[in-house]
């Protein structure tokens, strides 16, 4: 039971984190009516995961030998772009935080491209979705036997725990002020994106499209990739116990580029751009 619990929780954590954040974000800008963007994105992500799972199970052939890797890599980098875009938008919006509540909410809803949060939900769910769907499906079909039952319960509980974590993030963020929420969210999303950037780079190395290299260091004795905590830190910040130099470089390069984009000029901008009268 423990083994499948850890696997599904690890796979579901990142999706739960992202969903919790984007729902909370809509709540914060008074955009609850727009929850449907996120819900639709998440449901489509789930459907796409099921479709991918079915495709992998039924079909075979040249495309299926490479398709999963290509899609996985494309989704990783798409998520990086989406998260950066969202973070950048939040920063711009944060400049106007001094305006009155209604005005800033109205403006947020008017200027935000809300399908963007839907896309974040989609990629968040789809990234590990097909694997989780296939694993859970396999576990449930084995649930009749005693050992299979344990595994199935563990797998379902793992997904449920991931969902609960997402819910906790959503609820917890309600007590936080809008400004602090934006800052914290920007930071988390930036770390997630940096991690994804490094993950994608590793995938490209694995596929042989980027030159391979030896690990730069080995901290697997300290915190293993496959442990629960290691999985969380991997989902949150792209932790790798044995990263290659290119992965580390991608992680650092992303942070170096994204930090000024998402945080850099905020205090100056706030001073330089007084809120126009409404």
């Amino acid at each position, binding site marked *: 039971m423990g*083994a*499948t619990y850890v*696997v599904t929780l690890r796979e579901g954590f990142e999706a739960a984190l992202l969903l919790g954040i984007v729902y909370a974000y809509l709540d914060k800008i008074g955009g609850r009516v727009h929850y449907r963007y996120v819900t639709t994105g998440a449901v489509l992500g789930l459907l796409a995961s099921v479709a991918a799972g079915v495709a*992998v*199970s039924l079909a*075979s052939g*040249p*495309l*299926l*030998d*490479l*398709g*999963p*890797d*290509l*899609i996985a890599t*494309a989704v990783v980098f798409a998520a990086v772009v989406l998260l950066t875009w969202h973070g950048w938008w939040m920063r711009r919006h944060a400049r106007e935080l001094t305006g009155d509540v209604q005005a800033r909410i109205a403006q947020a809803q008017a200027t935000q491209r809300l*399908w963007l949060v839907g896309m974040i939900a989609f990629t968040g769910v789809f990234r590990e979705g*097909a*694997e989780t769907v*296939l*694993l859970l*499906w*396999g*576990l449930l*079909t*084995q649930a009749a036997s005693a050992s299979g039952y344990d595994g199935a319960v563990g797998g379902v509980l793992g997904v449920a725990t991931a969902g609960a974590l997402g819910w906790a993030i959503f609820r917890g963020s309600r007590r936080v002020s809008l400004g602090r929420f934006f800052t914290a969210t920007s930071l988390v999303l930036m770390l997630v994106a940096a991690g994804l950037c490094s993950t994608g780079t*590793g*995938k490209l*190395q*694995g*596929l*042989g499209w980027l030159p*391979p290299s030896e690990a730069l260091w080995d901290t697997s004795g300290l915190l293993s*990739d*496959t442990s629960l905590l290691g999985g969380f830190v991997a989902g949150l910040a792209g932790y*790798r*116990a*044995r990263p*290659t130099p290119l992965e580390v470089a991608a992680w650092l390069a992303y942070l170096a580029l994204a930090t000024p984009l998402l945080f850099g000029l905020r205090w100056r901008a706030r001073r330089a751009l007084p809120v126009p009268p409404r």
Partner: protein
Amino acid sequence: MRSRLALLVAVVVAALLVVAGDVRAADPPEVALTIEQHRFVPEEIRVRAGTPFVLVITNKDATVEEFESHELRLERIVPAGKTVRLRVRALRAGRYPFVGEYHEKTATGRIVAE
């Protein structure tokens, strides 16, 4: 907006198809690997260093497995009863462990490049 998105998706899919066809053009040697009773058979695969190859992984179990090598940054779902082909880049001489992620206690093995 929606049509632009659809176009973007179409372009990405087309590009993936082209890349997939292109990469498959080469014909590297194949190495068979079987999953049975949540174990890999054989547990040690010997390959020539410096030569890319294709792992042909067959899952004889009734449960899905995920072949995963952290070392090689490779992971691939292998559904129950299915065979998948996984391209592995040219490796430097050395040992590269892999696991079945869903049964990590029993499903372990390594590629030895020499």
